């Protein structure tokens, strides 16, 4: 229906994604609020300062930022009907998103071996649930991108489909933006 006339001149699906993002702000907001409210209240270690790996996370933060660049370039390519470039950049998003996720898997298992589990203390509970739900969002994003990539290879991702890519992109950027916040309040401000 989004090809029909709309009141604000914004396609329904795009507006819907923005509305959904508005709602997601509260979802992550509640998670972050809990993390911060419980900060320093664990009765046993490990504490964030003991365990968080800033260099590693800085790299994955950088990777996720660059995936956002790949995302806009992919959209740009689709709008210009440049399928080759579209494939490259969508592929890029998937690869970068994958690296981020791999970093998270590494981080989680490392923490696990250091004795920080979901059950260990409040820090573990709040940290894993917050970053875990973010990771789940990234995973959904990667699957979504993979779907777009398959469509691209089947030649079904022309400019007429650019809205599909744009909406997926909004989602992807939002997930990136959430990480910007998490990186700051969880990792850097200890």
């Amino acid at each position, binding site marked *: *229906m989004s090809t029909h006339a*709309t*009141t*604000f001149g*914004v396609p*329904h699906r795009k*507006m*819907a994604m923005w*509305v*959904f993002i*508005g*709602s*997601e702000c*509260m*979802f992550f*907001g*509640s*998670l972050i609020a*809990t993390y911060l*409210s*419980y900060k320093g*209240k*664990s*009765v046993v270690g490990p504490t964030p300062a003991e365990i968080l790996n800033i260099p590693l996370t800085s790299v994955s933060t950088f990777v996720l930022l660059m995936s956002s660049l790949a995302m806009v370039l992919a959209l740009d390519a689709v709008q210009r009907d440049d399928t080759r470039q579209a494939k490259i950049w969508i592929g890029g998003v998937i690869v970068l998103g994958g690296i981020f996720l791999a970093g998270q898997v590494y981080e989680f298992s490392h923490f696990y071996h250091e004795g920080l589990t*979901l*059950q260990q*203390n*409040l820090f*573990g*509970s*709040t940290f894993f*649930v917050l970053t875990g*739900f973010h990771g789940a969002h990234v995973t959904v994003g990667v699957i979504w991108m993979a*779907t777009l990539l398959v469509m691209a290879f089947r030649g079904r991702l022309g400019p007429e489909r650019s809205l599909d890519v744009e909406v997926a992109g909004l989602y992807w950027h939002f997930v990136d933006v959430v990480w910007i916040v998490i990186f700051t309040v969880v990792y850097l401000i200890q």
Partner: protein
Amino acid sequence: MNAAPTDTVQHESIYSGSIASWLTTVDHKRIGVMYGATALLYFIVGGVEALIIRLQLAAPEGAVVGADAYNQLFTMHGTTMVFLVLMPLAAAMFNFLIPLMVGARDVAFPRLNAFSFWTWFFGAILLNLAFFVNQAPDAGWFGYANLTSKQYNPGLGIDFWVLSLQIMGIASIASGVNFTVTALNMRAPGMSLMRMPLFVWMALIVQILMLLAFPAITVGLIFLLFDRFFDTNFYVAAAGGTPVLWQHLFWIFGHPEVYILILPSFGIVSEILPTFSRKPLFGAPFVIFSGILIGFLGFGVWSHHMFTTGLGPIADTAFSLGTMLIAIPTGVKIFNWIGTLWGGHIVMRTPLYFAVGMVALFIVGGLSGIMHASAPIDLQQHDSYFVVAHLHYVFFGGTVFGLLAGVCYWWPKVTGRMLGEGLGKLSFWVMFLGMNLTFFPMHFLGLDGMARRIYTYPAGAGWEQWNLMATVGAFVLTLGVLLFYVNLVRSLRSGEAATPDPWDGATLEWSMSSPPPEYNFAVIPTVNSARPLWLHKYGPTRDISTHTREDGTPPQPDHPVERIELPSPSHWPLVAAAGLTLAGGGTMVGLLPVLAGVAVLVVAVYWWAFQPLERPGNPIFEPARGTE
């Protein structure tokens, strides 16, 4: 009413068709009807639960049910009434009316709409399944941690509660997105925001509140699930956490939720009073902005449910004052409604009775709310029957009366039949009497120190007569509800046929046949007034001498004037909802059903995503051929 078309075209009923056509429908009107019908059924369920509660409390040392059963009853009663009756009944009206009122052929995402309905529907069933394994949730409708922890509540009851709320929450978010976009982005040409009907305005605010409030409870429920399933520490005091966190997360949701429940009624009343007073809503922009303000302030007052928690004087002060502020915009609404009636020529029909009853009763609940808002007073009133009185005045007196007013008002539009006037008014008076008889004595019970959620009380505390009165009242109230239902059934069987515009309405839904054709609008109207139909019927000043008929939105032609293509039915929303519920509910059983549910969900979502909205064989309406 001279301009209203008198001949009703008999379309093939939009409701006829096989069961399969209902399961796969994406028509917002049919989905609305399904929401409404299910909600009215659950009203009986929640009502019967209440009646058992009242029987148990009729006399001291009641022996109708035991302690555990009683705790289950009020928990299910509260949860049912809030999530299975009031929210879906409002959703029914959003579904049916928003597209009609803004001049659209459907909602923005018809299949997502079906998905919302089925997700809610299955979530509601999941909740009630708990009765069948004899482990209904029993920690109250706001399920305070840590009574809900595995340690203190090892059974499945809380799991049913958490999972079904989580699932219904997804439905609410999905429909919140859908209707926000519909109301914002699908308005007919010329319908600026300030020309948007009041009901749609309040509905829009409700959607935004849902979108912002539900995530908080979602997160709270996730923590609870993790605590129960994975032994995390979110609400565990021994680990440094606190159960008070749940109270915050719940009420950050819970307080906006009560405005989610009242604003639809505010919208309905704001439509009905002008129609029956035959003059525009007094101070419409103020009514709109006060609605926005109520919604916005509603996010800043949650801790007024926690004055006894021990947050300290500064927090108590902030939340007391914030709560009191809400009286101002609410008062603005009440006064504008009275202003609307003032100087009108009030037509005394059933919808007006319910609407005025809503205003009268809501004031009582609002004022007792103001008493709660004063933290010191609330130290006495909290968790006493005074609160039970408050909440039923705003829920029953406010929300239910408002929604029933809406049911009476739009019933002819939905069904094509009129309700019985005599029976309607009788049911109103019986309900009005029963309602006050049931809930007013609860104020005294609260003042006399009766705590809520107690299944038994000793003789000699001076509570006997008030409790007995409340129980008698509950049966009077039931009689009233029963009469209301009888009226509905009689109307369906043998009601007088409704004209397109039985009440001389002002908004677009009255411009088309009753019930509306599948495609709603034969021509998408152009709107240049907040009251397009009145403008058309009576001219801008409504002064018969200067009557200029041709302005405004004329009634819809009987047949499409252009080719209208509607979305095809699809069973994927239903399948996706089933998969989601299986995956969620399955967590109580084991990994296998969860994986199966996820698989079904994923398959359904992909089919759905790649299935075009309009496929060969979809409903198509051609000009000048009609639909017979």
